[in-house]
């Protein structure tokens, strides 16, 4: 069980971090080159019009007033309106439309990482120093080393261009139109009851989630291996074997459960990097999530969108890390001390 004190302490520690993150995000707008009012008005707008927008945005107020307003609005999840990308639309709305796309990619990517990573790690540990072990370890290191923006195009080249068995980019074939209910295209396609649309969505999801999942797969299998190796040498494992239990059952029942604890941490921490990898994966596969949105927003100077996206990423990252800590303390109560 998790103690309330631990949770409270952990949450209190978050306060300065959250405040720091908010301050940094506020600073993005004010430290960036260029006048936001000019960005909105366009290069040919009159000076007068730009002034008007400046005062509308409150850019002439003292900086602490602007800071206070930013924090107050942020608490109410109001990050202002988009300057350029979807001019005049609240940033929150833009993010709400785009976020599920990224979330879906990250979930499938992480699933791929877990499904392949954990068995590979166990295999590697149980058959330590065998050819399988070496291959898995080299494979894992290669997986970490190959950049998404190279492996992605390579897979597109092989499976889409040369073999023509998978679609190149996008989220679903243009033959199908699916109503956005959850924003997760595979789920929406399934809800629409159109099996072909669902299959198309899955096909489109295959390469991106594999590319983004390789990195998690590598880290998870590595952590699983070293954690398993450590557990295998524990006394209770010998006891279990000594009382006549089979090797496989011992590994799975006594070893796996205990070895999983550090792996849970790495899965959580990985989810954060996965969000970072989403930026590159979305760019390569032309998937319109918040990663591509951020790159677009930086390029055109749409700062409210930049602020909202960065804040959302930081919020998710922090939330996941908190979740990891809490899970860890449930799995291993000693950690609280």
């Amino acid at each position, binding site marked *: 069980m998790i103690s309330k004190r631990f949770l409270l302490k952990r949450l209190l520690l978050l306060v*300065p*971090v959250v405040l*720091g*993150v908010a301050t*940094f*995000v506020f*600073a*993005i707008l004010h*430290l*960036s*080159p260029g006048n936001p009012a000019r960005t909105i008005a366009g290069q040919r707008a009159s000076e007068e019009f730009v002034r008007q927008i400046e005062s509308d945005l409150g850019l002439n107020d003292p900086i602490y007033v602007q800071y206070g307003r930013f924090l107050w609005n942020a608490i109410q999840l109001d990050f202002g309106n988009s300057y350029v990308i979807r001019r005049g639309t609240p940033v929150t709305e833009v993010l709400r439309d785009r976020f599920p796309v990224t979330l879906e990619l990250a979930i499938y990517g992480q699933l791929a990482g877990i499904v392949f990573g954990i068995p590979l790690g166990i295999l590697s540990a149980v058959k330590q120093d065998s050819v399988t072990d070496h291959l898995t*370890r*080299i494979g894992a*290191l*290669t997986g*970490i*080393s*190959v*950049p998404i*923006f*190279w492996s992605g*195009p*390579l897979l*597109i*080249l092989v499976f889409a*261009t040369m073999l023509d068995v998978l679609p*190149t980019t996008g989220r679903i074939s243009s033959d199908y139109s699916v109503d956005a209910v959850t924003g997760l295209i595979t789920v929406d396609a399934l809800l629409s009851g159109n099996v072909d649309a669902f299959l198309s969505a899955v096909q489109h999801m295959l390469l991106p989630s594999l590319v983004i999942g390789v990195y998690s797969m590598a880290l998870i299998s590595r952590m699983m291996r*070293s954690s398993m*190796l*450590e557990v295998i*040498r524990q006394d209770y494992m010998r006891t279990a074997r000594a009382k006549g239990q089979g090797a496989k059952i011992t590994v799975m029942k006594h070893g796996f459960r205990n070895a999983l604890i550090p792996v849970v941490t790495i899965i959580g921490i990985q989810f*954060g*990097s996965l*969000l*970072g*990898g989403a*930026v*590159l994966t979305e*760019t*390569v596969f032309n998937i319109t999530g918040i990663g591509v949105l*951020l*790159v677009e927003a*930086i*390029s055109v100077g749409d*700062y409210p969108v*930049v602020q909202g996206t*960065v804040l959302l*990423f*930081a919020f998710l*990252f*922090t939330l996941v890390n908190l979740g990891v800590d809490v899970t860890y303390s449930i799995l291993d109560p000693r950690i609280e001390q």
Partner: protein
Amino acid sequence: MSSETTSQRTDKDQYRRGFFERLRQSSFLSELLSNRLALLGLGIILLIVVVAVQARLFLDLEAIKATQLGTNPSMAGPCGERSVIAAIQSAGSCAHPMGTDLQGRDIFDRVRYGAWLALKYGTVTVAASTALGVGLGTIAAYYGGWIDNLIMRTMDVLLAFPSLLLALALVAIFGAGLWKAVIALTLVYTPRFARVVRGAALKVLEDEYIEATVSLGARDRRVILRHVLPNAIAPITVQSTLNYGLAIIDIAALSFLGFGASAGTPSWGLMLSNGVDQGLLSGHWWWSFFPGLLLALTVLGFNLLGDGMRDALDPRMREAVD
């Protein structure tokens, strides 16, 4: 080392000897040298360094950046491609082993010069973040109290972002460019070093001999330089090596996304970006394949070495492995 012999030496000698002695006595080096994968990594890195230095010395950057199309029509190589168009269409030939790009430039030359750029900007990034992190981490551990709190909470804020995201947010402030990307990534990596160093330093500071040194009248500087840092060198080196690969990938990623190298620069990230945009679906796979191959190989080299170093370092791992 007995106390009699050391007391006769000068400070500097003593320090030097202490360091190399420690290195020789530790199983770190022998452990590392017996790790074949780590040696393979070292080999790859050395190869890339040779390629990079050779490219820097013998290739002319301006010529590499310049468009060859039209300006140099007599590009026919020994293998008989008569026109630039033919050269573009042949992925690999004797004159251009990696083919030429859309502008008729030799990809082999560009990729080799890219190695120099990757190592140059990667080295500056890693060196700067190591120096900053070591400084901040040591100060935080040594002085403790509000200084520690201020430094480490700031690091926490930076760690609250996925690394590439923070780099992008900083690029939004600084603007595009390779040096700006280096500054952004330096800030991104500094907290990792600060954490590692602070942890290592705290462990050292707990030891009784530090108390003895201080009570003998040693100044802060002496304690930090002679006792704290030498003991933290191993974890710092491992972290730097592992970060090297990451830095090279992230610099390339920023260029790939359009916030790094400027047009024409033979940076791997930019070559990949152009190659994917313009050549992937039209069948010019070599435009993006070779820059990516070199990038992946370089990063693999650093990861193999760094991984071997970590295994050699961590005694818990060593126990588990043998």
